[in-house]
């Protein structure tokens, strides 16, 4: 929850406060839930709403410029085929994907992603929410969500490649 809140507010202290507030709010107000979404989605919705209002109070929403996706997706020629085919390592990644140091580096990379990418990849791939839930929580379209997710995963793929190859 703190990680999610950090997508909206800059300082960790404020993010922790927001997460704490969300917990308290939830414990006080289960009647606001109304059974329309899963518990997890509803909880994240509270965190996001609180973080947004805290962020507005602070004026701390700092967008980060995106790099060109092509760097991360791969190298393609004018004709659309690989110019530099990918190094094949997926079958060797098994030992690394669950490693603590790799998880730490992925977490650190996620923290540096542009806010939209960070929020989507956190909710989808870290927290395991469904696509529809993430769209509900963040108020974005499915297509928009997939673009953000694609970019985030592409960058993390590049990081994992370095981890597996070294």
């Amino acid at each position: 929850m703190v990680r999610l809140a950090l997508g909206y507010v800059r300082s960790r202290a404020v993010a922790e406060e927001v997460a704490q507030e969300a917990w308290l709010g939830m414990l006080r107000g289960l009647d606001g839930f109304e059974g329309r979404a899963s518990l997890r989605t509803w909880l994240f919705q509270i965190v996001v709403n609180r973080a947004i209002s805290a962020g507005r109070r602070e004026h701390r929403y700092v967008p980060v410029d995106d790099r060109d996706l092509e760097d991360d997706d791969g190298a393609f020629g004018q004709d659309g085929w690989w110019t530099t085919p990918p190094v094949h390592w997926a079958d060797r990644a098994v030992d690394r994907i669950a490693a603590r140091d790799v998880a730490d580096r992925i977490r650190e990379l996620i923290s540096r992603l542009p806010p939209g990418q960070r929020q989507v990849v956190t909710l989808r791939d870290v927290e395991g929410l469904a696509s529809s839930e993430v769209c509900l929580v963040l108020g974005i379209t499915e297509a928009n969500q997939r673009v953000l997710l694609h970019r985030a995963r592409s960058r993390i793929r590049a990081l994992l490649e370095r981890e597996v190859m070294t």
Partner: protein
Amino acid sequence: MRRRPAPSGHDMTCRQAVALVTDYLDGALTGEQAALFRAHLAECPHCTEHLAQIQATVAAVGYVGAEDLDPPAWADLIDLYRRWRAGT
């Protein structure tokens, strides 16, 4: 009526296939797009590898979380939720 020819791996470029990986994994491609994508992968070991790398990436990211909500906190939460659902 003649059946349309089965898609060939060359009906989609590698660049296009790689760009559609996330949509494919989310089941968001149309039937026709998905058929083209699979036909491309059947003939392209590099794009097949890329898809496997993205799947490995998703698995790796799945190991990042889970530490910030400790089990007792979740158990309390689920208990509250169940009681609320049961109307008590």
